[in-house]
């Protein structure tokens, strides 16, 4: 796991664990988040990401392990005394208060001068573009407006870390995409560390500086969007982020390239891996759909070739998607072809035999 | 990490002691070998229970009260539920005034209602006084309680749930039965319990509107005037306490068994 010390760490988790009865919701997680980073936690529901977020907020306590926030250990520090604020999934807008009262909620305890409090509330409302809605009651707001109120309410407290629990989940697609852009620019303008929880990989890839992919209470990989896509550590991450074709086999040789005996489709070659692999290990050779090409002539050296039958093709305007059934490979192989002149649209017909090729450098060896 | 014994738990225990303290004196004195409920205690006896068991009219009154209270609870809740739905789900013209009118029985001293109802029932409608007249008056005084409890629950839940049900093809009745009712269920139970207790305990209306079948409070009011009858009354009170406790525990055990039988 990537735990090398960062220059300016704001959050540091060490072996954090949270048990609910016999179930470990968070199972020994350690990582650091840098100051000013937009950090996302991505994973299917039940993977422990929300629990982790709630432990950062202080709304839940770890069973074991430690959390450091800006260098301070957080054990025993209640939620109200932590320099974090949260945007709740349901927004949790106080129904008995209007917009201004909601936004200024967290400021009351600071006992600011009236003018200053008003200035900060106005500033926050301006930030989320809610000027003119000051006196609206909670029940008079739309979903997007509620989300903005929740954001303003958290930001106005000037937290060191803003925690967001699937804040865009309840919004429609267009609004969501708009909000994604706004959220990103907002984060840049305020410079606060955002910790963002989502199950939507596209959202995570769009927004984040770095993403932690989680499953079953564990962090599988932390990386940038590119890193996760290009260099997944394991099959699970590979399959969770985007589409990945997998060819099972056994390692036969390790040199500057790795040779894998993939049974009926022959020997596949792939670049050397960071993972610890020895000869005889069962592995998968993984390759993204857009790295594959349809081979018309003879294969060049250093290229892997498999042969199959086209089962479906979908025209997508700028590209086409083929599904190819390769004997010995359980799932159909997915191919994404750019319409760039090399491949004309709609060449192949379903049922026709097709040869797929990819350069050895485009594959990744994943353990089991 | 979880604290089991908080000050609030301690408070809940004290609250329960406050509730039960005076009530538990009943069983205490029902076993005391003395006609008078005074300290110090004299000795253990079961004779008060024997005298209670021999008191047929007391058991009759108990039965009357149980029947009346059960029926009243069901009717008041059944009438209160649609009313609460109408007042919370529809924007009715004059809804506020209607809601206020429905609460009026609370403001009027029951003795006045009792006498006025008596005149109207007997003189004008020529109805013979019976447990039915008592029951009717109890439905009337229970209604505001039932409506209040039910409304406070119905106001709370998301209307889109009902709309979702309509969308999924249920008609009005089906939506009520499959969505509204289950969601309002805790309040329905509260309402039933509350109405049962109010009716079971109501004295003034029952006193004036009962014919020749007394309810338990009416009977007890008479019995309490006779010092000799007091221990028997205490024995009955203790028995009611015991039986209701057993019922409650049994119901809870059954409920828990039901829960466990479901596959996890």
């Amino acid at each position: 796991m990537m735990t090398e010390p960062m220059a300016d760490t704001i959050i540091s988790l060490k072996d954090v664990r949270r048990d609910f009865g016999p179930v470990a919701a968070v199972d020994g997680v350690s990582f650091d988040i840098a100051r000013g980073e937009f950090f996302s936690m991505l994973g299917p529901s039940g993977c422990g990401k929300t629990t982790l977020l709630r432990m950062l907020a202080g709304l839940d306590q770890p069973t074991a392990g430690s959390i450091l926030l800006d260098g301070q250990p957080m054990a025993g520090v209640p939620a109200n005394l932590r320099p974090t604020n949260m945007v709740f999934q349901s927004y949790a807008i106080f129904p008995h208060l209007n917009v201004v009262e909601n936004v200024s909620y967290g400021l009351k305890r600071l006992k600011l001068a009236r003018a200053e409090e008003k200035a900060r509330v106005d500033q926050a409302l301006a930030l989320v573009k809610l000027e003119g809605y000051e006196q609206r009651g909670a029940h008079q707001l739309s979903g997007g407006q509620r989300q903005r109120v929740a954001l303003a309410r958290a930001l106005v407290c000037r937290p060191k870390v803003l925690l967001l629990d699937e804040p865009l989940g309840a919004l429609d697609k267009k609004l969501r995409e708009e909000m994604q852009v706004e959220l990103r620019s907002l984060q840049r303008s305020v410079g606060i560390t955002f910790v963002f929880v989502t199950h939507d990989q596209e959202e995570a890839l769009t927004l984040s500086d770095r993403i932690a992919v989680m499953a079953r209470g564990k962090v599988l990989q932390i990386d940038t969007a590119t890193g996760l896509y290009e260099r997944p550590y394991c099959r699970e991450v590979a399959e969770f982020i985007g589409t990945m074709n997998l060819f099972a086999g056994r390692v036969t040789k390790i040199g500057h390239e790795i040779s894998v005996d993939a049974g009926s489709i022959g020997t596949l070659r792939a670049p050397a891996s960071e993972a610890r692999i020895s000869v005889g290990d069962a592995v998968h050779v993984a390759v993204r759909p857009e790295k594959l090409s349809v081979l018309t002539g003879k294969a060049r050296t250093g290229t892997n070739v498999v042969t199959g039958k086209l089962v479906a093709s979908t025209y997508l305007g700028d590209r086409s998607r083929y599904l190819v059934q390769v004997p010995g490979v359980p799932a159909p192989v997915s191919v994404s072809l750019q319409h760039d002149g090399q491949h004309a649209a709609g060449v192949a017909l379903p049922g026709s035999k097709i040869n797929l090729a990819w350069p050895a450098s485009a594959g990744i060896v994943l353990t089991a | 990490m979880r604290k089991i014994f908080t000050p609030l738990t301690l408070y809940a225990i004290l609250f329960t002691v406050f509730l039960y303290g005076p009530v538990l004196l009943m069983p205490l004195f029902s076993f005391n070998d003395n006609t008078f409920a005074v300290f110090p205690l004299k000795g253990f006896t079961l004779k008060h229970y024997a005298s209670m068991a021999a008191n047929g009219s007391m058991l009759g009154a108990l039965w009357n009260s149980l029947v009346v209270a059960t029926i009243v609870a069901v009717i008041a809740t059944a009438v209160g539920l649609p009313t609460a739905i109408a007042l919370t789900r529809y924007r009715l013209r004059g809804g506020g005034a209607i809601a206020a009118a429905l609460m009026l029985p609370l403001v009027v001293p029951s003795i006045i209602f009792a006498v006025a109802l008596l005149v109207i029932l007997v003189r004008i409608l020529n109805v013979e006084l019976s447990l039915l007249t008592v029951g009717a008056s109890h439905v009337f005084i229970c209604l505001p309680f039932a409506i209040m409890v039910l409304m406070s629950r119905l106001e709370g839940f998301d209307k889109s749930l009902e709309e979702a049900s309509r969308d999924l093809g249920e008609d009005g009745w089906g939506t009520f039965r499959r969505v509204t009712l289950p969601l309002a269920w805790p309040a329905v139970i509260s309402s039933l319990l509350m109405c049962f207790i109010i009716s079971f305990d109501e004295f003034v209306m029952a006193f004036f509107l009962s014919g020749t079948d007394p309810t338990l409070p009416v009977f007890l009011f008479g019995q309490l005037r006779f010092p000799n009858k007091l221990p028997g009354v205490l024995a009955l009170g203790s028995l009611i306490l015991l039986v209701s406790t057993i019922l409650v525990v049994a119901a809870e055990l059954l409920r828990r068994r039901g829960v466990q039988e479901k596959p996890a």
Partner: protein
Amino acid sequence: MPDAMPRQTAAGFSGLAAGYALLSPAMLIIVAMLVAPMLALVTLSFWTQNGFELDTSFTLANYWALIEPADEPTMWMGIPFPFKNPVYAILMLKSLVMSLAVTAAVILIAYPMAYFLAFRVTRYKALWIIIITIPFWTSYLLRVFSWKIMLGFNGVINSGLMSLGIISEPLSFLLYNPPAVVITLTHAWVTFAVLPIYVSLEKIDRSLLEAATDLGDSKWQRFRRVTLPLSLPGTISAALLVFIPTVGDYVTPTLVGGPGGTMIGNSIQSLFLKQDNSPRGAALSIVMMAIVALLSLLFMWAVGYRKIRARSA
């Protein structure tokens, strides 16, 4: 009625007609059993009674008798009552004060219990609720009687204090006075108050509480700023539920109040049954109802009940 967002009827319901149809059973009962007696009562209050005969000529004398001024005010507890029949005003005031004391005590005692049920009890909620209702399955009269044993001369409290050596003579001020009425009524009504408060607390979205904590509130601040305001509707219901009926109670004062504990209900009862003056009794009840209704409205207005209801809806 002006309202920012008109409430929609549930899809498919045929609107108002269905709404009124749902109301009708309750309305029928209320009209039959409330309006008729009320009309009778109002009519009666404008009549006079001579012995057992009713004089049906219209008069306001019964209302005048309640407020007829006197030259010399009657002093009661240091308060001057400038009426010819000061008893009604005195009893009205006394009843209101006692009833308010009961209401305050009930809410103070019931609220933490309701809070406990809503937030602390997780597994045995139903059991707890039923546990607190069990004592009420025994007759009210018996419970009042039990309080007599509790508070009485050789009662539990006196015996207890004496055996602990705190007092040497039994305290006689415990029973047959207004505080005894307040204690007994508080005990009698406290469970009724727990239920509506519990329901309104239970309804509060837990994430609102987390949000408050997250925004920096301590437990107490969070209670004051979120939990309490959001539970106000139920709490107000509970307060009215207790206040309104206790003002007119007359059984409890009769049983534990002694002469000093009599309330307005006792006076009404006496006018109807003992003094053969039901018209004045009717006038007194109508005035009492009006005062109680007025106070309740005033109270609701003061705490902004409508506003709270509209927002939490």
